[in-house]
Each structure stands twice: as structure tokens, then as C-alpha cells.
């Protein structure tokens, strides 16, 4: 990890020197050139690894991760003008599998973040819409209330971008709840068997109005999807960054976008 950090900081120096430009300039250029993804999804992995490498407790890592998320939201929705950003904050497996005290700390941090959103004038002015999806009924009441409040506070937004936060989320669970809804509709007689197809499945997912992610980024070097947006990721370009999430800075984001721009998307054709 130290070696990849060194490599990336060297890259950063070279980039700044070559262009002599700040990342604001570079982001502006990318935005003007066009071709950017409409929807970016991020698996924010590596908070604990980051903290451990610094010899600090994992709550430090999560705090830094939250700060990094706030920055990335500004870069993606603000500077780059990308319409949709979805982040994987906490998986269903993490919710059930990790130590109780750690999960509680993390959920409190998320509740705090969502409460801050409901008081943030900048979010309202920029017309950003916030959605929270996942198994919300299994989350503590403070977090649930904060999520509902944040959604209500921003429900008239959308022009400035949509941020979807996945908490207690599982891709398979999302698909299963869609299947249950379809089964129920079929049992009620409100849907015929022949009309059950891919689009009817999509309609019953958590966010049917949001287009599928064009680019999915996973930080911290792990190369797997970990049950995130399985249906929607069918044709997403995947990008794996070796950096732990708190170190995924502006240049790493630009690097991911440049990689995306260099790909030819064929959708099977």
C-alpha cells in the first residue's frame, strides 16, 4: 500500500507540473469536453485499512471517509456537473456481520451526516436531491429519522444532481424484494404473467427513475462487486482503485474518469 501511495503521489506531482493546472481547471476541461458518465456509483471501501495503516482506530478512518465523501460530492455533482452519484455506505452483510460497537459508531456518524444535510443551505441552493435506500427498517431510529428528514428537505431538488446513499443495502435483497412485489401483483391480478419482463423488474427496484450507473468505482484494491447494484451494473464500466477511500482524492477521481473516457462501450453489440 505504501508503494502504491508513493506511485500515486508521484503521478500527482507529474500531472500538476505537466499541466501547471489546478484540479479545478482539469475538471472544468473534462466537463466541457463532454462524454462524462451520467451516473457514477462508488463502493467506498478502505476506511478501516487506512486507519490501521496509520495506527489509529477505525472510527478515525470512518471520519476521514465521511470528509472525503463530502468532497467527492462537491466534485462530482458540482464541478463536473454529473447528474447522479450513488454511494455504498454500508452493506447488509456489514450491518449483520461486524462488531456491534463498530456498526453503532458508523451508523451514528451516518445519522450525523444526514442531519447535517438537512441543515445545509448549500445543498438546498444547489438543488441537490438526496435519497437513502436499503433495509431502512432494520436501522436505528435516529438514522431512520435523519434519512427521512434529509429526503424531505431535498425532495424538490434534482436539477443540481441526485445523491443516493445505500445503507444496509444488498443487491440480491433489492432483487428479491422486487420479485416479491411482482409475485404479489400477480397474485392480486394486477399484472399478467406475459408482462413480467426486464423493465417490470427494473420498475420494482429501489430507484427505478435513476438510470443505470455508467461507471462503478471501487476503492481499496478489492476486485469484486460485493452485492452492490447487481441488476443495474450489467453494463457499467468497472474501475478498481488501489487507494483506500479516504485517500481517493481529486486526481484519483480524474484518473478514473480518464479511464472511463478511454473505453469503448459496446453493450454487447
Amino acid at each position, binding site marked *: 500500500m505504501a508503494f502504491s501511495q508513493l506511485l500515486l503521489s508521484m503521478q500527482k506531482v507529474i500531472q500538476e507540473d505537466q499541466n501547471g493546472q489546478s484540479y479545478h481547471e482539469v475538471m472544468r476541461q473534462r466537463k466541457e469536453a463532454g462524454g462524462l458518465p451520467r451516473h457514477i456509483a462508488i463502493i467506498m471501501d478502505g476506511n478501516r485499512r487506512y486507519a490501521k495503516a496509520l495506527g489509529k482506530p477505525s472510527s478515525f478512518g470512518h471520519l476521514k471517509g465521511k470528509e472525503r465523501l463530502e468532497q467527492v460530492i462537491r466534485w462530482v455533482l458540482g464541478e463536473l456537473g454529473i447528474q447522479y452519484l450513488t454511494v455504498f455506505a454500508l452493506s447488509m452483510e456489514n450491518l449483520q456481520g461486524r462488531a456491534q460497537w463498530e456498526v453503532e459508531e458508523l451508523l451514528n456518524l451516518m445519522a450525523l451526516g444526514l442531519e447535517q444535510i438537512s441543515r445545509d443551505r448549500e445543498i438546498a441552493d444547489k438543488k441537490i436531491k438526496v435519497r437513502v435506500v436499503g433495509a431502512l427498517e432494520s436501522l436505528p431510529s435516529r438514522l431512520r429519522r435523519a434519512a427521512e428528514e434529509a429526503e424531505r428537505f431535498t425532495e424538490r431538488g434534482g436539477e443540481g444532481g441526485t445523491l443516493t446513499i445505500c445503507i444496509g443495502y444488498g443487491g440480491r435483497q433489492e432483487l428479491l424484494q422486487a420479485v*416479491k412485489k411482482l*409475485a404479489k401483483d400477480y397474485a392480486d391480478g394486477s399484472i399478467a404473467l*406475459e408482462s413480467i419482463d426486464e423493465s417490470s*423488474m427494473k420498475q420494482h427496484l429501489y430507484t427505478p427513475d435513476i438510470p443505470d450507473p455508467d461507471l462503478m468505482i471501487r476503492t481499496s484494491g478489492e*476486485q469484486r*462487486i460485493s452485492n452492490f447494484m447487481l441488476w443495474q451494473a*450489467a453494463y457499467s464500466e468497472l474501475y478498481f482503485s488501489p487507494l483506500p477511500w479516504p485517500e481517493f482524492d481529486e486526481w484519483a477521481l480524474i484518473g478514473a474518469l480518464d479511464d472511463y473516457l478511454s473505453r469503448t462501450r459496446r*453493450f*454487447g453489440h
Partner: protein
Amino acid sequence: MKKGVVRWSKRLARFLVSRVLRCGPIPKHVAFIMDGNRRSGGSRRMKRLSEGQEGHAYGFLQLKECLKWCLDLGIKVVTVYAFSLENFKRSAVEVETIMKLAEEKLNELAEERGFLDRHGIKVQILGDLDVLPQHVKAAACRAMKVSEHHEQAVLNICIAYTSLANMAEAVEDGTLKPDDVTDELFSESLYTRPVSQVDLLVRTSGETRLSDFLLWQSACACVQFQPVLWPDFSLWHLASAILQYQRSFSDLQ
């Protein structure tokens, strides 16, 4: 004499590689997205194996080689993405070439049964077989019939397949009560039953996307994207993918 020595030393290398890898955890189910045939038109290695054949034909020979390596390593289930429903939108000439090749190779598999019998491989063709031309469908059914009693390993060939279509069909097929719907039931309704999980997914040619392949089953798979084109995919590439799987194995648990 020289050729014999080379062949013998290659066999030894394969044996050693497989022994070393088998010291660690071996994935039970490996899936391959065999991308890069069109860009290849055949590498030097493949040209030695068969003169004058095109990219897709190389791809098939490569598949047989890869299957042998997987069996050596003790991998029980291999699933390959041969042709997607979306691929039908390609040029008519290409689609026809692929269909003819599929029919030829499936017939070959069904007729020279030595390979399947020797390794106890059960062949399953997954996908919406009804949209395939009649001859291809017949060849597919024959290949499946001939090997249906084998139990040692499974080769799933996905033709006219997309994961989304399979999942939608699974929902449509089951007259389910909402309360019956569970993880296991859904997995049982997909083509790949009874296997519900992919352990390692390898995509060649450097593209880093899933392209609608085994989305449900790959939820927790170790995904390896390799820049090599499929006809150039060698045992060393497979070994490197398996090593990555072994590295992340403890995290997966």
C-alpha cells in the same frame, strides 16, 4: 525429438503449476467472459494448432485448452459466455458465422465423446434456446443428452443468454407466493442451478465490465480483468487469476 522434449516439459510445467496452486483454496465455480476473438484473428500459438481459422474458431480451441487446465486444477464448474442475446444485434455475417461454428463444435462435442467421457464432464447449454436456429438448438440438445449422466464436472455454455433476461424469466416462470420468495428459491430458478455462486470471474481483452453475465451469481465473486485477448489466454494467466482469488480468499470469508 525436440518437439517431444518441448511437449514433455510443457506438461511438466502444467503439472507443477497445478500442484502449487492446489496448495491453496481452489475456486469451485469459475466463469469466463471470452472476449477478444474479433480483435485477435488468431495468435501465433493458435496458428500452430490449426491453420487458416478465424478468431472465433481460435476461441473455441482455446476454450477446450482452458477447460483441461481447469480440470487439472480441480475446478468443478466452468461457465463461459459464448454468445449474448445482445450479440444478435451484430452484423448478420458475423452472427451467421458464430451460429455455424456453434453448431459444428457442439456436434463435435456430442460425437467425439472421448473428451467428455474421460473427464466426466456434463455439458449444459444455458440461454433462451428457442431463439437459436433449429440446427444449433438440435446440436445443443444432443451435446447435453450425451453427457447428462456425467457427474465429475460441469461445463455451462451460455448462448443466447443475458443475466437480466434469465432473472426476469425466473420471476415469470414461478407462480410464486410472495412469502415463498427467498435467496435460495431464486437461485434455484436460474439457469445455473443448483450452483448459485461464482467464486472467480475472469474477463479477457481488458474490458472491465460484466456485460450482463451471471449478475446474481457473481455478487461476491472475485473479479479479474485481464488485458490479454481470449485466444492468447494461457495457463499462466489462469494461474495469476487463481492466485488473486487465493489472496482475497480470507477477506471473502
